[in-house]
């Protein structure tokens, strides 16, 4: 993490109108070019952090500071669901961000096709989402998020609903895209193993109201594959992250509330 910071969350809190506190003072720096995972139990506000960064939510207090102003299309977002328009072809779905930005049809099409090729969906450009498997739909969502060549890619537990074989494959594909794409990734997950395998750094969040309780650099070589998963180093890193997660959970069980 020698690179410059891309954005910083400074004492960010978020409360809903009904009084529920989703976030209690989140401090987090995202370095340019890193693969940062946000790890925490369900309902801890990980997704909320992602939405704040995307500008879909505004903090109640605190600030989200960018080192340079984020332009339209500078952020890609992948949701838990593929979130494709069922009435449009895969090509049109991937082209959507360009269409919305007023990019011409011909250029939009060729960029969408190029992106589809990167995720291995060239043959399905003219298919409709319902004709694709869950994993393929997620690839299409990934292609759509990357079609604007964003500086920052936000992923909200994107592979949680997939079967394990598909998930492992998509993990590798995402890593390959990241390595060659030169963008920054902020990845939300509740899986210790997934976060260690993918990330260069992990930030662990405690139960609601969410805050960052610990951060850890992942001490693994940048090239990751099946051998990584079976190595002793990987196991040690997973144990370390698990320990962090356990301390994150501990205060909540002591006070016995606030996790709701």
């Amino acid at each position, binding site marked *: 993490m020698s690179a410059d910071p891309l954005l910083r969350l400074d004492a960010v809190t978020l409360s809903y109108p009904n009084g529920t506190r989703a976030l209690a003072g989140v401090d987090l720096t995202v370095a340019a070019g890193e693969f940062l995972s946000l790890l925490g139990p369900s309902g801890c506000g990980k997704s909320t952090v992602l*939405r704040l960064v*995307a*500008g*879909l939510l505004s903090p109640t207090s605190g600030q989200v500071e960018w080192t340079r102003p984020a332009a*339209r*299309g500078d*952020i890609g*977002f992948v*949701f838990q*669901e593929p*979130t494709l*328009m*069922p*009435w*449009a072809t895969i090509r049109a779905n991937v082209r*959507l*961000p360009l*269409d*919305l*930005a007023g990019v011409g049809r011909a250029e939009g099409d060729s960029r969408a096709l190029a992106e589809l090729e990167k995720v291995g969906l060239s043959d399905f450009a003219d298919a*409709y*989402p*319902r004709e694709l498997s869950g994993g393929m739909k997620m690839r299409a969502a990934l292609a759509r998020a990357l079609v*604007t060549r964003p500086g920052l890619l936000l992923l909200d537990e994107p592979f949680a609903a997939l079967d394990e074989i598909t998930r492992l494959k998509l993990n590798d594909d995402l890593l390959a895209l990241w390595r060659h794409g030169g963008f920054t990734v902020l990845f939300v997950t509740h899986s210790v193993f997934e976060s260690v395998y993918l990330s260069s750094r992990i930030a662990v969040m405690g139960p609601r109201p969410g805050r960052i309780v610990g951060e850890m650099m992942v001490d693994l070589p940048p090239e990751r594959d099946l051998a990584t998963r079976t190595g002793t180093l990987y196991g040690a890193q997973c144990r370390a992250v698990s320990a962090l997660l356990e301390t994150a959970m501990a205060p909540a069980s002591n006070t016995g509330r606030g996790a709701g």
Partner: protein
Amino acid sequence: MKELIQRSGLWLLPPLFGLILLGAWEGAIRYWEVPPYLMPAPSAVLAALWGDAALLLGSLWLTLVITLQAFLLAVVSGVALALLFSQSRLAAAALYPYAVILQVTPIVAIAPLVVIWVGYERVNLALLILAWIVAFFPILSNMTLGLRAVDPNLRDLFHLYGASRWQILWRLQLPSALPYLLAGMKISGGLALIGAVVAEFVAGSGTASGLAWRIIESGNRLNMPRLFAALTLLSLLGMTIFGLLSLIQRLLLARWHESELSKAGR
């Protein structure tokens, strides 16, 4: 072969059943010698259809025109009002209750009033207004629902890419609403016909000369074959409207919507 029967069998079943029913009907009328002013045989109805073709087709045309006009008017006004409601909460709050009042007031009860206001010399306009009132609400309520039934994540995605209100409406809300609109149109198409017929019954008195008036007239003269002939044409008209709207629905939704997918998968 067995598979062929199974596959085509479901399609053949209703007409086959109809033919058996018509045969039994014809046989029963002849066997018990039922007088035609009580119950005409299918052959007599067919003869009336043929013999009174000019008269009946003229009436069919009138009913058809009023029904179609009312239906198109209902679609246009219902969609327009739903769009207004989706863009302005204020308009929705102010106007929606009146749309409901229009819907829940029985059409038979307002029909005489509308006929008097519009005037007997323009009775077709009165019929059009009444049929429109009946057909309008399913479009409005379904379209309103459809415009709201947008995947919240997709909405977020559009916001993320800085989509304008117009882009969200055109690229997201309208396609999301299409299945709802088509379902509403299917209901509304049938209601437009019902509205046109009911209105004519109320207007009565022979100034209107659609199929409903032919039924009243034939009933008064105990001309049962012609009454049944008019009734047959009405049913055929209703089925045609429903069939066409189902076809449009299938053509527009076939490739992507769940409602049409289950049919294809079978």
